[in-house]
């Protein structure tokens, strides 16, 4: 109903591959970007700081992981460790006196390099073995961070994110932090949006579909898997740094433990492998649904609708949340991106049922 496709045509093959040929999609993206840019004016600090901000940061992280899982078809159970490396190293670099812009790149690079080392070791193996290898990375990094006080910040194992400036402006207050996170998120998003259109993206897809078939068409699977690990870890490191500087403002090892890795994987799977919008939706569901369900149940309880003890009450959102995830995956195994896609298709063919052949 909203999608008007008439008059969309391409006079060059290049134009045929443009990102959003459909005007409604373009308008949607423009509206979303405009909303994101104006969010600090539109939303209260509560929603900006506790919902939107973590959401875009986690979406950034999920995008990075999705590059590896969705595009290149590899699994990674130690993504939180990658983020931890980025977060800690960026903080230490800033403390050493370098500007934030350089530090975050440095953090990303360090994550990428360490991620690559693990990638090397891990990519000798496939599937479940790879899952276990990356899990080992998670444990190893956890252990190092929490045992080396020089990294973790002394006996309290907490490291404050130092005050920092971006482009000469001091970043203080939710609004500035939000814009920094948004900028990073937009850069990563546009990178991923374009991955599918480049030879890099197609090589990754080839490796994902069948790595030996990829080899036969001249795509070195090992090289591209490593490249995927590298890029994904770089994005993860940067997301970790943004998480530390713009959201937590302090890092502790618990913020990057195995649970967090699992959450990141859940975001990607629930959102939809290989989908940009899926990464956003997945991050939203995994990150925000528990909070919202919690508030919903709490509101119901306050209204007297749920006469039960606090302990039972606090488990209801968990049950709902679990049900929600299982429900979504049963309903649509390809994730929220596919749900969105179905919805989009429903309107694309409006008022018909089927796409014309």
């Amino acid at each position, binding site marked *: 109903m909203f999608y008007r496709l008439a008059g969309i045509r391409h006079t060059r093959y290049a134009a045929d591959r443009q990102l959003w040929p459909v005007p409604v999609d373009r308008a949607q993206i423009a509206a979303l970007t405009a909303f994101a840019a104006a969010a600090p004016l539109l939303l209260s600090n509560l929603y900006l700081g506790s919902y939107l901000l973590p959401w875009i940061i986690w979406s950034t992280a999920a995008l990075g992981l999705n590059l590896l899982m969705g595009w290149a078809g590899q699994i990674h159970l130690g993504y939180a460790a990658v983020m931890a490396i980025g977060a800690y190293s960026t903080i230490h670099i800033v403390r050493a006196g370098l500007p934030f812009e350089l530090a975050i790149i440095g953090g990303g690079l360090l994550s990428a390099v360490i991620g690559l080392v693990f990638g090397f070791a891990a990519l000798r193996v496939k599937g479940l073995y790879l899952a276990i290898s990356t899990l080992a990375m998670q444990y190893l990094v956890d252990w190092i961070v929490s045992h080396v006080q020089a990294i973790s910040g002394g006996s309290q194992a907490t490291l404050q994110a130092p005050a920092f400036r971006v482009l000469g402006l001091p970043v203080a207050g939710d609004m500035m932090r939000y814009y920094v996170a948004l900028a990073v998120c937009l850069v990563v998003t546009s990178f991923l949006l374009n991955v599918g259109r480049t030879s890099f993206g197609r090589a990754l897809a080839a490796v994902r579909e069948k790595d030996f078939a990829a080899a036969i068409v001249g795509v070195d699977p090992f090289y591209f898997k490593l490249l995927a690990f590298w890029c994904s870890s770089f994005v993860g490191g940067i997301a970790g740094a943004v998480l530390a500087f713009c959201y937590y403002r302090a890092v502790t090892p618990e913020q990057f433990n195995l649970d967090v890795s699992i959450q990141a994987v859940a975001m990607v799977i629930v959102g939809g492998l290989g989908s940009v919008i899926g990464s956003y939706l997945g991050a939203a569901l995994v990150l925000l649904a528990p909070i919202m369900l919690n508030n919903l149940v709490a509101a119901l309880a306050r209204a007297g609708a749920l006469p039960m003890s606090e302990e039972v009450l606090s488990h209801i959102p968990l049950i709902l949340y679990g049900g929600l995830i299982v429900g979504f995956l049963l309903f649509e195994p390809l994730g929220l991106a596919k749900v969105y896609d*179905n919805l989009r*298709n*429903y309107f*694309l*063919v409006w008022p018909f*049922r*089927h*796409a014309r*052949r």
Partner: protein
Amino acid sequence: MLSLGNVEVVYDRVFLAVKGVSIEVSEGGMVALLGANGAGKSTTLKAISGLLMPERGEVTRGEVRFNGRDVAHLSPPERVRLGIAHVLEGRRVFEHLTPDENLIAATSMHRDRRRIAELREKVYGYFPRLKERLSTKAGYLSGGEQQMLAIGRALMIEPKLLMLDEPSLGLAPYLVDEIFAILEQLNRDGVGILLVEQNAAAALDIASDAYLIENGRIVMSGAAGTLKENPDIQEFYLGRAGRKDYHAVKHYRRRKRWLA
């Protein structure tokens, strides 16, 4: 035995693959389903065997009856138990098992070990070549042998209806002859066969009836002999075998009317 009534299949909720397909296979009949690439042949077979699910397909209308029973809502294993065997396109044998293990793998529904042994012998009777390669891993068999194994594996469930998807794909002509001869033999032994083929000439030779599917719709049906004589079929599917050489392949844009 098998009767499809106005089956409509939709993939991914919006992509209409086949529409209003009605097919009959009589007890012990041999029916060919012809059509170009992407016409909906494999989709039709999958609608019968129930394999649409993994590809996000769905029978949205019509009925699939097997021996009078509506099987459209049964799971693939349940349909196999009723005697519907589907030999997939591209010979999906279990590559890391030997031919023998491949055959046994298809007998999980049998309890009777003696019966299994008998069946195995019967399959080897049809395909003596397999017996020669008994202990090789199936992945190392030649394409033709793999195809035979795939058919043999389907036979292990003692099908009443055997559906084959492009059994001649990528095989040498003499192997095609061999396999088709076996299919004829099977048919004489009472197995109903629904054959999907691009090799229309070979299929029309052994089938008794044929359907022609185009753009997801049946456009022509009738006795195999009649179809074979139809000039349109000859033009589009039989390539006027023998009358034109390859130098004379024409780049015509032809409207297909399918008059019969």
